[in-house]
């Protein structure tokens, strides 16, 4: 036994030695992952960023950011200019404010008919020296011609010719600099005129907005208080939307209005329960006073599927 134990020990020692030599793995050096600095902003912060400011320097016109010249797209939402309001004249104001001058566009004479009319005059002058019969005949002909020309002439004026864009001079030494080294799959924004600067703010950017935590707190409170009837069938038809108008004291100003409509005793009891939940949830302490404008008038959706999803 002692002999075989020695043999076994020697075998293990050789196996371990072999393992030490052959499994001498390269030292594990994790490559340093490139760290990306990340800032968290809330949705509210983002809409504040895009809202733009009133005291921003006034630009000539905010043109859309454009990198390629193309045909102008029709504006989907043309911004309507606000008409200037005339100041209200009271007895205390000494001088009446200058009335805004209204320039009436003078109707310009159309170029084509003028040219057409000038022709028969010339013929008249030429024909005066000849005999009157022929003159009368030709006059009639000329009149007919001029009338025809008048009818033929297009009433719309010709569009003004665009100035030709300056052609860039070809320089063989600058070809490398002109090459577009950007990603070919990139979607370039197109527009009428090249414009590389981004706009100051989006016209629909709205700064004050209910943050998600406020919304969630409100929803949790209402869902806690709402007891829809047990055994609802077709929960999808039991969605109840209620319009709630709140005052600055975070309490209801008027009775909540049910927007959705439905039939059946189940629906009615669910609706009444939702209205009771809105009443019982007063005051809505989770809403911040800074965002009063957003929660002053809101629509709340009671969806039983949210309840049962947990």
């Amino acid at each position, binding site marked *: 036994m002692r002999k075989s134990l020695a*043999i076994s020990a020697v075998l293990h020692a050789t196996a371990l030695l072999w393992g030490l030599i052959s499994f001498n793995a390269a030292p594990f050096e*994790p490559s340093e992952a490139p*760290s990306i600095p990340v800032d968290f902003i809330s949705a509210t912060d983002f809409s504040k960023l895009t809202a733009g400011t009133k005291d921003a320097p006034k630009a000539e016109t905010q043109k859309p950011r454009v990198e390629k010249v193309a045909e102008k797209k029709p504006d989907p939402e043309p911004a309507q200019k606000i008409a200037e309001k005339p100041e209200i004249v009271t007895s205390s104001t000494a001088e009446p404010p200058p009335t805004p001058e209204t320039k009436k566009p003078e109707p310009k004479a159309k170029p084509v008919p003028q040219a057409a009319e000038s022709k028969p005059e010339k013929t008249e002058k030429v024909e005066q020296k000849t005999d009157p019969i022929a003159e009368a005949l030709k006059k009639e002909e000329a009149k007919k011609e001029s009338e025809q020309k008048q009818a033929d002439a297009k009433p719309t004026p010709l569009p003004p010719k665009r100035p030709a864009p300056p052609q860039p001079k070809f320089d063989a030494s600058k070809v490398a600099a002109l090459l577009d080294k950007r990603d070919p799959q990139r979607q370039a924004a197109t527009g009428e005129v090249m414009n590389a600067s981004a706009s100051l703010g989006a016209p629909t950017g709205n700064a004050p907005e209910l943050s998600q935590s406020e919304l969630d707190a409100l929803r949790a409170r209402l869902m806690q208080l709402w007891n829809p009837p047990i055994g609802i069938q077709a929960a999808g038809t039991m969605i109840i939307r209620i319009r709630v108008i709140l005052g600055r004291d975070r309490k209801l100003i008027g009775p909540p209005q049910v927007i959705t409509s439905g039939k059946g005793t189940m629906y009615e009891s669910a609706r009444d329960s939702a209205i009771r939940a809105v009443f019982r949830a007063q005051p809505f302490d989770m809403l911040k006073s800074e965002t009063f404008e957003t929660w002053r008038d809101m629509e709340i959706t009671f969806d039983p599927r949210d309840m049962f999803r947990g």
Partner: protein
Amino acid sequence: MNPADVAQSALPIASTDLSIWGLFLSAHWVVKSVMLGLLACSIWVWAIAIDKTLLYMRTRRAMDRFEQSFWSGQSLEELYRSLSSRPTHSMAALFVAAMREWKRSFEGQSRSFAGLQMRIEKVMDVTIAREIERLERRLLVLATVGSAGPFIGLFGTVWGIMSSFQSIAASKNTSLAVVAPGIAEALFATAIGLVAAIPATIFYNKFVSDVNKQAGRLEGFADEFAAILSRQIDERG
């Protein structure tokens, strides 16, 4: 967290080596003791395996030799005289025990044939049991290591993974550089457990079947010899 801090905290971990020696040194002491215990188990298992292999080889050869001389027509008295001078094993021991009982019954003052057949069979049964016990000794160690080795290794692994989670908690960083060394050292414990357990199981199964074969051979010889002696008893009585 500042990216520079992260890079700095990752630096000491980066310099761990994953060689066998490095894994052993960096392990927790519990894991270390598990590893050492499993290594000792492995050494013991292989020692038993070598010992048993040699023993069974020797036993088989001795049985062959004895059977050859037994069936060669040599007189049983001569064979008994040549074998009883020195200690014997397996089939020879069986033969010597039976012959001794036979001689004692004949050479004593009172000749007792009545229970001789039964006595001889009893003596041979006892000898077979003793021989099988000798062949089976320490086989239970193999069975134990074969079944418990993976569990012991798994214990070391669980402990090592616990410590690697603690290192995650300490460095507040879940990158692979923090977790990998702990998990590697933990898995090393399971590897040693499997290395000890797999040969143990294989050897145990092989040896059990060997022992059964040899026990059957011994019993067959015992029956045959009992038949011969019974014929002798009937002839003399």
